[in-house]
């Protein structure tokens, strides 16, 4: 599939990712999540939440019981855990390695977290693990990178 088509076919849109993470957060904090709770957390209407959740329910990522309480299926939970990990990794790379301002790094990580493939995320984690290690090569890399100052104009 062409990349742009794959992008469009992704069921976990930016909005959907936030809905899934809101359910995860509410269940952790309150022990339950209703459509109204998700709507309040995301500051949108219940109608909007219900419509966004429809394809996620059909895909088996979100479950709703007879009391209309929402929870993530094991597949949904795995997806959310993956998104959270990717957000953390991207945020670290942007802020700690690239020197992007913390708030901007958080915003950009939020935009990318649901789009990065697992394979790329794994390589990013390996790279961070390398930088965190006490290998002389990692220390030297960070030293060289820190002193490298090539602006876009150059």
């Amino acid at each position, binding site marked *: 599939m062409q990349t742009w088509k794959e992008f469009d076919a992704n069921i976990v849109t930016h909005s959907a990712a936030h809905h899934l993470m809101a359910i995860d957060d509410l269940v952790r904090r309150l022990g339950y999540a209703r459509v109204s709770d998700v709507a309040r957390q995301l500051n949108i*209407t219940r109608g909007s939440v219900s419509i966004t959740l429809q394809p996620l329910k059909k895909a088996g990522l979100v479950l709703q019981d007879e009391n209309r309480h929402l929870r993530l299926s094991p597949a949904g939970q795995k997806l959310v855990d993956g998104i959270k990990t990717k957000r953390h990794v991207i945020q670290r790379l942007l802020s700690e390695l690239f020197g992007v301002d913390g708030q901007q790094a958080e915003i950009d990580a939020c935009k990318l977290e649901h789009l990065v493939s697992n394979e790329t995320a794994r390589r990013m984690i390996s790279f961070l693990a390398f930088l965190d290690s006490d290998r002389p090569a990692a220390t030297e890399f960070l030293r060289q990178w820190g002193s490298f100052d090539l602006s876009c104009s150059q």
Partner: protein
Amino acid sequence: MEDHVSGLSDSEVVVELNRLFAEEVEAAIRYLHLANAVRGVEQLIAGPKLREGFHETIRHAEIIARKIRELGAVPSLQLSLSLPATRLGAKEAFETALTFEEAALEAYQDLLKRVAGNVALEEFIRSQVAIESEHVAELKQLLAD
């Protein structure tokens, strides 16, 4: 001003009414979009019903806005809406309408529990619950066969 009967202050009631206002305005926009997203022969069947939904939900929004004004406030509205240029079948459009109508019904039902004791507001919300229940039942009937 505190409404000791229902336990909600006027400002809290305004917050709740603003939420309902947003539900109704957004539902109206969705109805308008759905009415135009259904094309071809199916437009003949679904178009009038969906336009009727648009007019009715806008009327509900106006009633809620009036209730907010009666409490001395100005309605506030914040919507986050993106409606794709995708053709829909009548069934799909009615299913979408059912989803947001059910959400609106639940919103009224929840508020009804919270305003118990405030006769005027309770009466208003109760009548809205009845109307929304009818909408939901009607849509379910349309989708039944």
